[in-house]
């Protein structure tokens, strides 16, 4: 890995600075405005924050890799929903019911497999047709959603299994199951992106695709692998979330892609690719959830939340540009 210069350090720590500001703001304002006696900054509340960050967070972590590649995936919300349907529906299949609780890991397997297959479809199309990932996944966002509806019409798919719920609600060392998964995925992806050849190649491809191709990196399969990875992660997110909730509406997961992208961009990953970090995305995810939770805590309404999140996104982009600006000598193009 490359050594960082000072500007990089500033950029990488910016999101954590933002989180600290948010915490301070909500702690102070929250004390004044909230009707609750509990302080916003309590440990339990922060642990809950991590848990609640998990569904979008796990997807956003995968999105980071896709975006470091210079691609984007708009279909994750639909993948999330379809994986959830497979998870819950498979538990009702006769042979699965015969298995008792052993059906649970199998159902997880089916759901994760669904995610991987959907990701592979995206990846294969991007690889083989050379159509831009934005268009491919924009179209498959519609297509996968169509498959979701095809599966069970417009009805919700439900299967409440208390063993599953208890597992999902369990806490180990104070952290919820979902938190463990979020942190585990973050750790693994961080290792992948910083320590492995695949991860380093991901940066190289995003930085200079031509050079990567010339250097013999097989860009097509690399893309496909990453799309399978994000498919897997979208499914994993669904598995964790729907194990706890037990019912999925065909519209679930809509707009998740936009939230995931927002988190990734807040974390400083460049849209053009080649730059970004898993840990910063984790920061981005936490920052958004904190904002949402904090605004709820101080009693802000939906419209304010929407307004604030939208403007913060634009503000971050503006700051990033200011940070990256060269001197006055710059060519004005």
């Amino acid at each position, binding site marked *: 890995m490359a050594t960082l210069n000072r500007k990089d350090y500033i950029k990488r720590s910016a999101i954590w600075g933002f989180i600290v500001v948010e915490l301070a703001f909500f702690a102070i304002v929250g004390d004044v405005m909230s*009707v*609750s*006696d*509990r302080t916003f900054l309590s440990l*339990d*509340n922060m642990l*809950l924050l991590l*848990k*609640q960050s998990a*569904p*979008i967070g796990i997807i956003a972590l995968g999105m980071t890799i896709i975006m470091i590649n210079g691609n984007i995936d708009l279909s994750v919300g639909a993948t999330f929903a379809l994986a959830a349907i497979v998870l819950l529906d498979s538990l009702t299949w006769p042979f699965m019911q015969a298995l008792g609780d052993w059906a649970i890991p199998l159902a997880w397997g089916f759901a994760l497999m669904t995610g991987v297959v959907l990701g592979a479809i995206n990846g294969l199309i991007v690889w083989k047709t050379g159509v831009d990932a934005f268009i491919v996944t924009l179209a498959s966002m519609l297509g996968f959603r169509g498959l979701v*509806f095809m599966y069970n*019409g*417009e*009805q*919700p798919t*439900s299967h*409440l299994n208390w063993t599953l*719920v208890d597992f*999902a*609600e*369990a*806490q180990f060392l*104070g952290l919820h199951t979902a938190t463990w998964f979020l942190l585990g995925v973050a750790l693994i992806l961080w290792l992948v992106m910083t320590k492995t050849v695949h991860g380093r190649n991901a940066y190289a491809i995003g930085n200079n695709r031509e050079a990567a191709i010339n250097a013999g990196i097989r860009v097509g399969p690399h893309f496909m692998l990453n799309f399978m990875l994000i498919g897997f992660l979208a499914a994993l997110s669904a598995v964790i*979330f*729907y194990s*706890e*909730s*037990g*019912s*999925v*509406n*065909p*519209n*679930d997961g809509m707009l998740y892609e936009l939230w995931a992208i927002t988190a990734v961009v807040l974390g400083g990953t460049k849209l053009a690719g080649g730059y970004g970090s898993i840990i910063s995305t984790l920061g981005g995810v936490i920052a958004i959830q904190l904002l*949402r*939770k904090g605004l*709820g*805590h101080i*009693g802000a*309404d*939906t*419209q304010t939340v929407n307004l604030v999140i939208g403007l913060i996104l634009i503000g971050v982009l503006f700051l990033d540009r200011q940070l990256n600006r060269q001197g006055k000598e710059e060519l004005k193009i």
Partner: protein
Amino acid sequence: MNMTTRMALVCTTALLGGAAAAETMTIGITQNNVGVDSYQTTYEKAFIAAAEANPDVEAVVLDAGGDVARQIAQMEDLIQRDVDAIIIWPTNGEAVIPAVRKAHQANIPVVVTNSNIAEQGFDFVASFSGPDNITQGSRAAEIMCDRFTDMGVEGEARVVQISGQPGYTTAIERAKGFEDRLPEVCPDVTLVETQPGDWSREKSQQVMEAFLVKYDDIDGVYAGDDNMGVGALNAAKDADRDGIVFVGATNFAVGYEAMADGDYWGSIYQSPVDDAEAALQTAIDILNGEDLPFLNYFDTPKITQENMDEFEKPVF
């Protein structure tokens, strides 16, 4: 901290909280999706107004924006903030059950409002307060059948249905009530097709346009609420197709006006203000230890062009 000690802690604090409730009770509500239609917005305003009017109540009002995950997070937040009672307007009648159970385990009574959760969750709910949507569907079927009988077409009438957002309990229950009841009262009327209108006037208008092209002969339209019903009515007007009986539910102001104009036949009168006040009252009653029926329905009567004078024009 293992689970049992945590639970014990939560219980103690809940008890302490209960003691404090004698003076003020903190009631949290997580709504489905404020801003998606007037009903929910009016409900929210009415709820806040009712809570402010009552000096003993502090309300924490949250909105899930239609997202199950966000609603579950809000349930957790409310449990974490240790409110005295939680009112939930479920985004999904099944998905929120575990979250409701969590509140139940934390000794916080849960009132479900407007649209019920599925039966598996009934054990964890203190009370349901809201309209009886299955009955609403049945009543709509009856309104339509009566009208067909008056018109003398009950033997051959063809009906299309525009249902609410797929997957929402209210939509499912109303459709079920209508579909079950219609053949009972008018066995010769056929329901030719059902498509979702997603509670949206625009979507409903498009769906109706397609129906009108597809079927030359449509005698009645049942819409899951008046907003969609009026969308369908607009489509019929555009296509110059007269003589269609429109029946909706949740009488909106637009539906009421269309009835007054004679374009729209009937609906179910359901006030969000009643709905909100009933929910709050249910929660207060529970905290005061009063005995309540588990299904605490408020009445939602039939409204048609014939009896609309008995009702005030809806404010939403």
